[in-house]
């Protein structure tokens, strides 16, 4: 089995979904999570707070520095993710299709074999 990261991105400046749309999204992701668990594909999943709540920690020459805000200077930030285990990419893509229908574009990225326990 291989592990894949399915990530959903938040785009700065994109219109915020209405409450009703958020409710639908939560309901649908909840359903996807249940189905993933039933299929034995689910490892871990979660939604993240906005990138302004992020802190970057650096250690340089033994000194620790912290800075407010996200690491990447970009307009697209990871907003939530699933970690799933599948036999191959096609299985992961099938899950990604459902996730994308619920939350918008999904990036599917395989874990490095060496980092999989």
């Amino acid at each position: 089995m291989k592990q894949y990261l399915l990530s959903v991105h938040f785009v700065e400046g994109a219109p915020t979904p209405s409450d009703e749309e958020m409710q639908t999204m939560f309901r649908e992701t909840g359903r996807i999570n249940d189905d993933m668990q039933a299929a034995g594909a689910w490892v871990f999943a979660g939604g993240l707070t906005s990138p302004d709540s992020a802190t970057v920690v650096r250690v340089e020459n033994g000194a620790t520095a912290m800075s407010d805000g996200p690491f990447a200077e970009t307009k697209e930030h990871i907003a939530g993710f699933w970690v799933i285990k599948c036999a191959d990419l096609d299985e992961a893509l099938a899950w990604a299709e459902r996730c994308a229908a619920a939350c918008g574009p999904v990036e599917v990225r395989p874990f490095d074999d060496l980092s999989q326990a």
Partner: protein
Amino acid sequence: MDLASVYRAEYGRCVATLARLLGDINLAEEAVQDAFTTALQKWQTLPPNPGAWIVTTARNRAVDRLRRESTREARHAQALLLHQQDEPQEVGPVKDDQLRLIFTCCHPALAPDARTALTLRLLCGLEVPEIARAYLAQETTVAQRIVRAKKKIRDAAIPYRVPAEHELPDRLPPVLTVLYLMFNEGYASTAGPLIRTDLCGEAIRLARELAALMPDEPEVLGLLALLLLTEARRPARLGPTGELVLLPDQDRSLWNRALIAEGHDLVRRCLRRNRPGPYQIQAAIGAVHTDGAATDWPQVLALYDQLLVLAPTSVVALNRAVAVAEVHGPAVALAALEDVDLPGYHRLPATRAELLARLGRDGEARAAYDQAIALTSNETERAFLRTRRTELTHPRRSA
């Protein structure tokens, strides 16, 4: 004994079989190349089944190689290999392996450019410089595309399989494109001899297998029919001194009747399903060309009009103009070409030159021929265009 022709005929099949056995494309390629090197040293005469010999040797080589290597991955692969005891030793290449590998190479998760390059490399055994020439691309670019695609297949675990029925509508188009391009490259090679029969034959063989696997997909039948009807005319395409002979001047008695009959039958079968697609229409055009003693041009033009709706590309517009010239005359065809833009493609100025010549506008025709000659990389086609250009100064055409 001709090892080169065995290589051309068996390379793709052997790589496909080894890819299934080893689950790794790179390893499969290396093992097959090793096996051909061994064959070069050992074969005094051709073994009864060269493909099976190569597969067995390649497999043994791969097992040896995996035993020597000591990474975790290699041990894992080795364990898999050694557990496949039920696999008969002397297997000839299994035909489905190739389809499986084509679908892997044409996976939608790979970039379109990479799909073609990878398929031509793995299934046709074309070398990187040949692929680069065929697509007017840099060798390094093509090499990188292939390396990247193979890495993604491995890292993302793109599976080796023919997709399930419900996935086919998405997965089939790039596969059809690849087979079509493979045939085209064989039928009008970018460089070297005009026709590479091995590539044409391989594309037809794979299209047949695809049609056997998916007899209900009309575009698959359409593509097969198109390839057969084009191949059928090949024997008449070159004259006695190897010169290019265009359709109107071809000796129709040289055409392959059996392939034409099979192609016509397929065209009827797929059109009956009433789900027309670009390959079916092109096959229908091929059927009109090969029906009776002369081409029914109004019918060809009607089909091109339909094709232009389904596939509004510049190449289709160019081909349609040829039919327009036959039905409405060269002036109308020339006007139809005005908005067609195909930078770098010699057939546009070549077609324009023919139309201008027919209108007696020799000066403009000569300039257009010069343009076309400069853009052609194939010697046979260049010679053909030069002859046409020379004929301008010796007017013999009445039209």
